């Protein structure tokens, strides 16, 4: 019973802070709303018996990526807040229409899919050992490729900051 209450509490928290991210005037507040939304999603991961992924979500997203966002917003500190939204109302209308149709399609597919009505089979949670066993046998190539993708960050960012007018210009 507590799972249902917990789910609805976390769901409303995530959705409301998600709306806050899109709607808020000051980019710093939208960043802080996003941090709350991410911890809400991390709580949902714990609810879905995935404690390692939930802790990783807080560690990577809420603790590292969002600190970078908040840091950059504070450093750049653009105070002339141009208008929040793009384009005239014609463009906005089309975009709103597109989003409405898209969300309608997605929810229709979700509601009609057979998986929807089936409650969970057993609520045994996966230990990190099982995650590790599958990770290093089935996905070891993806694991190595990920190392290379992550190598993009330092090389790319240093090259970017080296260009004329960059922060670390030669």
């Amino acid at each position: 019973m507590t799972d249902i209450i917990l789910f609805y509490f976390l769901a409303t928290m995530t959705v409301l802070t998600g709306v806050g991210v899109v709607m808020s005037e000051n980019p710093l507040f939208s960043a802080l709303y996003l941090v709350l939304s991410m911890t809400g999603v991390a709580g949902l991961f714990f609810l879905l018996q995935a404690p390692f992924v939930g802790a990783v979500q807080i560690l990577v997203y809420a603790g590292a990526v969002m600190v970078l966002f908040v840091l950059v917003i504070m450093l750049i500190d653009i105070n002339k807040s141009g208008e929040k939204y793009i384009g005239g109302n014609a463009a906005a209308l089309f975009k709103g229409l597109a989003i409405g149709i898209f969300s309608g399609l997605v929810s229709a597919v979700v509601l009609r899919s057979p998986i929807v009505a089936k409650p969970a089979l057993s609520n045994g949670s996966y230990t990190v050992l099982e995650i590790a066993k599958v990770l290093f046998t089935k996905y070891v190539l993806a694991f190595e490729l990920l190392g290379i993708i992550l190598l993009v960050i330092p090389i790319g960012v240093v090259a970017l900051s080296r260009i004329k007018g960059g922060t670390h210009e030669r």
Partner: protein
Amino acid sequence: MSVDVLTAGHYLILSAILFCLGLTGVLLRRNIIVMLMSIELMLNAVNLAFVTFSYFNQNIDGQIMVLFVMAVAAAEAAVGLAIAVSLYKKFKDLNISLFEHLRG
């Protein structure tokens, strides 16, 4: 969609709502950094769907996929922000329409 037991539908609807919120953010907002944040919101929605399927189908690959999605999303956010900072240093403003100056 019964109320007394939690089914995959509850989580998938929530994931769909979050995804559409992120989509509106990307389409409507003018500031580049808020667009990057909306993309992060969409990726969070995708992660939620992955973990839901991993839990309801008793299959571990969903959680491993979430780890990979997080790593790639963090790399994308890092490089995206580096571009946003260099854009700000050049134009003193963070506006999506600044990308019209790219030529060649």
